[in-house]
Structures are given as C-alpha cells and as structure tokens.
C-alpha cells in the first residue's frame, strides 16, 4: 500500500542520516522541495546519487549534508560551475566529499541494473578515458559469447529514490509527462520510492505508452505543488532559467550562500514558505 504523507513526515520517517539517496530528474522535474526538506531536517553523511547534481545537490553539499557523491556531470546547465560542489572537491569545504564519478552511459547502466536487481550493469563504454584509473567501481568483464571486453558498473540501488511528478492518483499510481531522464530506472532501483507530486487526482487516464510508475512500486506520495521549482514541471510551470543564472552569484561566495540557505530554506517551514519568501524578495 502506498502511504500518503506530508513531505516533512515522509523525510523524517524514511530518510535517516547516512542513507544513500537519489533525487533524480534530468533538468526536468527535479525534486527541489524534497532536497530542501533534507536540509531543514539537518540530514548528515548522505550518499547522494544523481546523474547531474544540479543546484539541489550544490545546496545539499554546501550545507554539509553529504559524505559521498555518485554522479556523471556536475555543472550548472547552460551557466557554468556548481560552486559549492567545486569548493567541496577543491577545498574540502564545509567537509570532504568522496567522488564516485561516472559517465552518463555508465550511470544509466547502473540504474538499469539496479531496477532489474542484477548485480552490475554492462556497456560498451569508458573507452579512451582516464575515469577507470580513478574509480575502482568501473571494471570490465569478458563476454562469454564473443570474447569482447565490456565495461561494468555496480548496480545502483539507493536506499531511497525521490522523484517529482505531475500527478498521482489516490491509489499511488504516478504519471510523468515530458523529459523523464533516468527517473523510471532510478525509481525502480530504489529500496523505497518517494514521489512528490503537483496534484493528486481521483483517477488517472489509462497511460498507454506514457510513463506511469504503478502504485505497487511507489512507497510514498507527498502532495507538493511547485516542488520542482526552479526546475520545471511540463505543462505546469517553466524552468526558471533566470534563477539558474542568479544561482551562479549566490553560490560563488560561502557567506552569501549560507545566508541565502538560512533565510530561504532553513528559515522557512515548508516548500510553500520557501516560495513565499522568494516572492517577497522579488516584490
């Protein structure tokens, strides 16, 4: 049975310190509200997993919530650096961060293996790159049929995957529209899947080829409108490209970053409060 919980209760109940957590969503439907709730509740020692850390992991890393990061591309899309991620790697601020670094193809294979409960993912990949020299998790296997050497990555099975979606119904079926990245695979790879949604409806139309995570795969649904801002929810609100540009300035300086996080994330009680605090600044 899918549980329906307020986001703060879902995080308090299911995401302990030290957990491995994947907040997936490739540019679209990034679960910002859930990431902020992890920060509000002061989670520590998390193993963060995400193909593109994006602003949400920049924030978690800068607030000292993470001990390890599994990722494949750590930039601010279309803008430049993630300054808090860089500061953690280059200067160990506010604490050292272990890296488990991959390519997109490798992480995708890791999620697919995790979703299928296989021990590893296999790909014709990591060719002509120094990555395997620095990441002992990247290994190889000889194909028993052709003799070809293929790259392997361990299955990714996060303790908790958190996704954001447009809609869930009252049984816990989840529908996602638009760019879906590796959300389906990351969701199925998790020991527990939490989904924050824009809207809970009585009934979803039959999905045909649309993406639907059936309720038997969904552990928790939390109603959280606007929960992907400043990323976007196709059909609901657009990506706030201007905020992604402004984040470059906010995150560049440790003091300014900390002040912003204290004021807007730790200083508000929930996602609605967070958005309202930003609206007051904009007004």
């Amino acid at each position, binding site marked *: 049975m899918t549980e329906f919980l307020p986001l703060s209760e879902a995080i308090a109940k299911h995401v302990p310190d030290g957990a491995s957590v994947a907040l997936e969503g*490739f*540019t*679209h439907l990034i679960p910002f509200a859930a990431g902020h709730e992890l920060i509000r509740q002061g989670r520590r020692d998390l193993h963060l997993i995400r*193909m593109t850390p994006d602003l949400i992991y920049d924030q978690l890393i800068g607030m000292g919530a993470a001990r390890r990061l599994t990722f*494949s*591309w*750590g*930039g601010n*899309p*279309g*803008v430049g650096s*993630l300054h808090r*991620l*860089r500061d953690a790697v*280059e200067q160990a601020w506010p604490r050292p961060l272990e890296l488990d*670094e991959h*390519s*997109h*193809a490798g992480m*995708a*294979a890791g*999620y*697919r293996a995790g979703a299928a409960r296989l021990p590893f993912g296999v*790909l*014709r*990949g990591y*060719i*002509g*790159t*120094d*990555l395997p020299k*620095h990441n002992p998790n990247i290994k190889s296997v000889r194909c028993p049929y052709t003799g*070809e*050497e293929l790259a392997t990555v361990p299955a990714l099975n996060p303790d908790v995957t958190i996704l954001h979606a447009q809609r869930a119904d009252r049984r816990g079926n989840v529908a996602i529209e*638009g*760019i*879906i*990245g*590796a959300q*389906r*695979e990351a969701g199925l790879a998790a020991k527990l899947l939490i989904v924050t949604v824009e809207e809970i409806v009585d009934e979803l139309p039959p999905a045909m080829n649309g*993406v639907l995570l059936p309720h038997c795969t969904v552990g928790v649904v939390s109603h959280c*409108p*606007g929960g992907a*801002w400043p990323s*976007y*929810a*196709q059909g*609901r*609100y*657009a*990506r*706030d*490209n*201007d*905020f*992604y540009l402004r984040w470059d300035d906010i995150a560049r300086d440790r003091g300014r970053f900390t002040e912003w996080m204290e004021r807007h994330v730790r200083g508000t009680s929930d996602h*609605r409060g967070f*958005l*309202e605090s930003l609206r007051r600044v904009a007004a």
Partner: protein
Amino acid sequence: MNDYDRDEMMTVAAARMLWDGCVTFVGIGLPSAACNLARLTHAPGLVLIYESGTIGTRPTVLPLSIGDGELAETAACVVPLPDIFSDYLQAGRVDVGFLGAAQIDRFGNLNSTVIGPYAKPKTRLPGAGGATEIAAHARQVFVVMKASPRSFVAVLDFQTSGGHFEGRGKSGARGGGPTVVVTDVGILKPQPGGELALVAVYPGIPIEEARAAVGWPLAVAPQIETIAAPTRNELAALRALKARTEAAHREPVRLPI
C-alpha cells in the same frame, strides 16, 4: 552588410558540415546553434537528438539547458535517457556527435574533468556527462572549441574522452573519432596517424595566428583552404534564431504559488 564576428563564423562553418538527414547528437551552446541553423537553412531533415531523451526535436528557440521544455514539446518522441545512450548512441545510430572541452591535445583527446591532479584539482570541471561514449560511438565527432594555448595543450591534465588515441582501433569504440575540430581561427582535421593539422582558415585570418593559438607545433596541410564568409542568408537565419532565443529567455517566469 556582411559584417560578422568569429562566433558567427564558427557557428556557420560547423552548420555547413551537417547534411540533410544526418542524425546528430547535440550539445548546448554553439553546437546547438549550429545544428538548428543547419536545420533552418540547408538541412531541414536533420534529426537532432539531445541527451535528455528528445529525438527529432525542432525547437524554435535555443534551449538554455539540455532539458528545456521546448525540446520535449517540439520532439518527434521523448524516450528515457538510458535508451538514448544504449539503444541509440551505443547501437551506432548517431552520425555526428558534437563535443567541446576545456582542453584538447594534438590527437583530439579531450579533457572536461579537472585542471590539476584528479585527487586534488586546481579546478574541478563538470566531468564527462555524455562525452566519453559520444567520442567512442558516434560515427564522426565534430569538436567545437575556441583556440588558445591554454586549451589546445601538449599534454592533457585528464583524458575524459578519446580522440585518435593509441589503440583506438583495437578498443571497443565503434565510431571513427573526431573528423574535424572547428575553432575560431580555422579548421583542423586529423591526418593519417591521427594528428590534427590546420586545413582551413577563415577570411582575413593568417595561418600564423592559428599556429600561435595552439599550444603545440601545429602541423599545416599542404593546401590551406579559405572558408567562405557567412552568407547574408546564413547570418540572417542565425541572428533571427538568437533574437528569438533572447526574447524567449527574457520572459519572466512566475513562481509556482
């Protein structure tokens, strides 16, 4: 007026290399501008794949990120990201992959991971993303980078993606590697053996300027072509695309409350 800047020259030069029907794996920035310029001019049947999962996308404005909503709304289809990398790129269904990087060496190997040692980098860069497997499996790779001795280096700090590295032929790489490097001073192509050589310059740019912009003794092909300046039609299409993009990105986004 046919005044143009070097960014425009690079974009137009890259666009001209794409052909109608070509399946192209697009990156953000100049490659995205070049691909859409080609689609809006001589190659209307260009198939654009963005790694976020959009196939056959026909955006009216250029995306800021690789996953903007515009890409999904104008795509022929949207597939999960793991499908893009395994069933399209790895399966050999991509004709041309675009790559840029912080550093390139004379064999077209690329670094987008770190400046300095990996364990204690001076500058941590974003990392591989799709680049490693694009470099391995796209039938051809077009590299687009502004030339400077800081970025065109004798020795990479880290090899993120393979160009014409030793042993490429015996590796599992199914693609042909970089076939062209488009810079702001001219165009390089690999010679037999894989080393890049200057094969073309832009109007008004001397060969010496191109050599000075590269941090190794740059080989120069026996015959140097001069690329034709952007046409009025190319410039008009590119500038209109950029103007539409700027106007769209200026539209204020309301907070979702």
